[in-house]
């Protein structure tokens, strides 16, 4: 995807990320996602953005995960809901017993 030359991610320093355009992907969107995820960056080969250097593992991964579910661009489809339907029956007493046991367990 690209090669990382990490400037040790210290405050006040700049991280450089080279994003190669060899593969078919939305480089700009990727650059934005990485920029948001890891904080202060300079991106060559895509847009250049600088953010406050607030590198934090959990928050950064969350931000990157968040960027994955946003729908970019316009889509048209010829369906509103999808999928075949299969109905099944189970012994309801058994199911209720299982639900009882599970309700007493932690997550």
């Amino acid at each position, binding site marked *: 995807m690209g090669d990382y030359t990490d400037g040790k991610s210290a405050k006040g320093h700049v991280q450089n990320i080279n994003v190669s355009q060899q593969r078919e992907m*939305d480089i700009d969107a990727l650059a934005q996602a990485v920029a948001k995820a890891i904080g202060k960056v300079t991106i060559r080969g895509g847009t250049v953005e600088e953010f406050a250097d607030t590198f934090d593992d959990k928050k950064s991964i969350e931000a990157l995960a*968040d960027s*994955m579910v946003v729908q970019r661009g316009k*889509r*048209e489809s*010829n369906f509103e809901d999808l999928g075949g339907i299969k*109905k099944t029956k*189970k012994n309801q007493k058994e199911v209720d017993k299982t639900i009882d046991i*599970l*309700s007493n367990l932690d997550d």
Partner: protein
Amino acid sequence: MTEAGEDILDVLEDVDVVEEKSQKKSESKYKPGVGCDIGTSNIVVTRQTKDGTFVNRFHRDMLYPLDVSDESADLLERSDYLYVKVDNKYYIVGEDALKLVNAIGKGEVIRPMKDGILNPSLKESSELLFYIIKAIVGLPICEKESLRYSVPANPVDRDLDNLFHQMVLNNFFTKMGYDSKAVNEAMAICYDCNPILKSEGNDIPLSGISMSFGGGMINVALSFKGLELRSFSMTKSGDYIDERVSKVTGIAESKIIKAKERELDLDNVDLSDRVQSALHIYYDEMIDRVIHLMSEEFVDKKSEMDGKIEVVVAGGTSMPKGFCNRFESKLKSSQIPFDIYRVRHSETPFYSVAQGAAIRARSDYEKKICK
């Protein structure tokens, strides 16, 4: 034609519409609690109706790209193929993707998932995957409806971490308005199939080994009274078999999938048919490898159970006739450190993960309303 290019957030911020639709769904027939099996090959979403029926909605997790042209527009107008149009491409979705690639006889389908998690090398198809999941799951039927989505355990035979995959799915369902949590894929099968531990004359429920043979992975969990004691996964499941058989026979994977799902009978293999013959060889190799790795894992971790345990098996790759008999006879003569009572195939192997996840989601909901 449905126009739906909006950001998920924009759609979901239209709270009035969500509430109105939620109300309608709730009034109709379902109990709160949704189970989602986001698998490498298929997506299955399950809800339970008030009369106890499980309603499983399923969709093949595949896409087939077609360039926008007069010919492709004409083809889509004359057929009932389901598609999403993005810029200058049509993406035929689900079962139709497989039908079309078989009819055209060239190209391959795109798989948005790989080895049980989001395929990291396909950005566009990941976005399409979320668009598709949304169309299958639908809106919550009440505020913060409980939802459980299945995730694989980390594999013992490859360096792969499912944490990011889990986070992405959690963000997605939370944004849709659900109170979402992950559930281990094999544990979902435990909740659906209820394996039994026979100990000192008692049948202890939700105790034993649960196994899911999916498209990308094989998941295993050891449980006691519904509590997960140990879980792990292994790669090289159904998709690997398709790929290997395609390589050795020179026949396209899409055709191998069709043959595997419609014709394979492991009790009665037609050795004159090279596809059946190769499928049989690779199925045997997978069963041997899985039993070896799981025995090693349980021995390493010094896992013990006092009594005879039941093994429950589900998942699309376990569906060929004769699979369970073959698995049981090999397991009983293996080094696995448990006394095996029997191997039981799920009555609904294709839907077990989603049904188990729905049962878990129902228990989450019960817990919430009892607080």
